[in-house]
């Protein structure tokens, strides 16, 4: 830990009543949360929820309209290089010059900092050793993202911001990135992660803030949040003919029912009872069941319960 910047007991990231507008659009509306040192903290929400605006304010890339922001006890906007020395980040949209080699890129960025990690070790850790002489423009999407992660760690930062680090990557590469983030957790790095992938938040985050329309609508550990959603099972069904969701809501065990794009999402406290009741209801209505899927409670259910929408609508 670098001295004189952050004191123990104080949250390493502090956000209070944050506001950010783009013209008439209110991207962030009074968002507040705090992250403890060594925590992997997730901002989970749909596209346009205000996650990237929030994280870019925390990185010092954007100016907030109102509110308090502190990272390692510093104001990202006004602390300049003292702040930058302490943080690493993977941006959602960024690039490097195509004709820059992998090794050159990571070494160049390392030279900007007072504290420098071993760049050879980072290349090894991120499986980029074989690509050290490759031009950035010749890397695959996954390799570019791994390089971005490696570069975020060249200064051995206290806090790492990862803005949608797996967006657009195939499942295998995504799993590789998950392994890297889990390793960061083992190394006790503080990580702030934004995502709209449920499994990412559930698997990687110690605590999650669910964000919608620029506000935190729920905050806690994934387990706490799921428990808070009444521990219901999600049953998704597709029917031959539409029915009113009021009828399905009255079925045995159903706590909630909502329609999304022609399919019905039922939250049930008694799965077996609900399915039996559903089949009976469809027979009596001369309707047919096209598909039925059962999901154990997830953060998606929490989001649906709180907003009435799916995360990726």
């Amino acid at each position, binding site marked *: 830990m670098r001295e004189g910047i952050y004191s123990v007991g104080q949250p390493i990231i502090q956000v209070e009543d944050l506001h950010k507008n783009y013209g008439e659009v209110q991207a962030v509306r009074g968002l507040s949360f705090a992250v403890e040192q060594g925590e992997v903290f997730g901002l989970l929400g749909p596209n346009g929820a205000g996650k990237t605006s929030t994280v870019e304010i925390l990185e010092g890339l954007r100016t907030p309209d109102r509110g308090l922001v502190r990272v390692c006890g510093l104001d990202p906007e006004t602390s300049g290089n003292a702040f930058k020395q302490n943080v690493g980040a993977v941006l959602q949209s960024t690039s490097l010059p195509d004709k820059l080699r992998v090794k050159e890129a990571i070494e160049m960025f390392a030279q900007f*900092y007072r504290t420098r990690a071993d760049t050879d070790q980072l290349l090894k850790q991120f499986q980029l050793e074989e690509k050290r002489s490759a031009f950035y423009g010749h890397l695959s999407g996954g390799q570019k993202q791994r390089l971005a992660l490696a570069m975020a760690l060249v200064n051995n930062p206290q806090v790492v911001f990862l803005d949608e680090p797996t967006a657009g990557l195939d499942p295998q590469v995504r799993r590789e990135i998950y392994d890297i983030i889990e390793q960061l957790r083992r190394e006790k790095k503080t990580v702030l992660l934004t995502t709209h992938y449920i499994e990412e938040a559930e698997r990687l985050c110690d605590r999650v803030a669910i964000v919608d329309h620029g506000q935190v609508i729920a905050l806690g550990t994934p387990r706490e949040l799921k428990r808070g959603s009444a521990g219901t099972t999600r049953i998704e069904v597709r029917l031959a003919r539409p029915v009113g969701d009021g009828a399905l809501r009255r079925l045995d065990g159903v706590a909630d029912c909502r329609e999304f794009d022609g399919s019905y999402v039922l939250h049930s406290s008694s799965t077996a009872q609900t399915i039996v009741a559903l089949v009976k209801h469809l027979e009596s209505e001369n309707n047919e069941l096209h598909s039925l899927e059962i999901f154990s409670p997830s953060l998606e259910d929490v989001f649906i319960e709180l907003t009435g929408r799916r995360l990726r609508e």
Partner: protein
Amino acid sequence: MSTTWTLTKMRMRLAVRNRAFFFFSLVMPLIFLFGAVMFFGKGAANAVAYVLGAILTLTVMGSFWGLSVQLVTFREQGILRRFRLAPVGASAMLASSILSNYFLTMPVVVLEIIICRYAFHLRSWGNLGAIFVLVTLGSAAFAAFGLIVASVTNTMQETQMINNLIWMGFLFLSGATVPLAVFPGWLQRCALFIPATYLATGLESAATNLATAGEMAGDITALTLGLVVAFEISRQLFRWEPEAKVPRRAKIWVLAALLPFLAFGAWENVTGHRLSQVRRNFQMLDNRAMPLRMERPR
């Protein structure tokens, strides 16, 4: 300083890996050199000195083009915002552009002088000290002018359009391509408000070894002032983000960049010294038998 040097090395690496850079920075100036010596010089050694001054001007003025295009590309592609996350300031970013461009321009300048001396039988090396100072200040000042354009344009198309407009003025009104002395008087007077004119007349005088200390001081002052003002303006207007708007005050800043040359132009129009210098230099081309003054023993 180490950040600037780190960025400078990166910029130089990127430039030498770029084929377009080789063509525009090395091949094209040499094509111009051979063409100009054949067309204007017609093989006369005295005229070669005049032509060399013009070619050096073109080479140095090329700094205006490349940097603005590269900076806008970096911004459009989100490269600048990655640097912004690191402890890298706008000054280091801009200074590294200027320095890398200078280090890459200098060898071309040296090559052009050597070719003129040995292939085209240039009688004298000219005033090498003055050439060095003018090339150094000129490449930095014109690079800084390019960086202003990059700061006030949002897209590559916009940058190229504005670059073309300004470049045409630099090219044809400075005397770098068509000798200023052949233009009508009123156009010569207008040319005195263009920064490129100071570089062109300075380098022509230095290459022909006709420059007096006073004339050199005037050119050096104009280019130094141009460099300082342009660098500060490009620093003030620097934008890291592609979506960042050009600030309203940008137009005022851009006008401020013109102020030194408006002042110099007005001064030169009153005194008439520079136009006399332009006509005197041109005699090297016009009267090819004219002996070189202050010619050093071979």
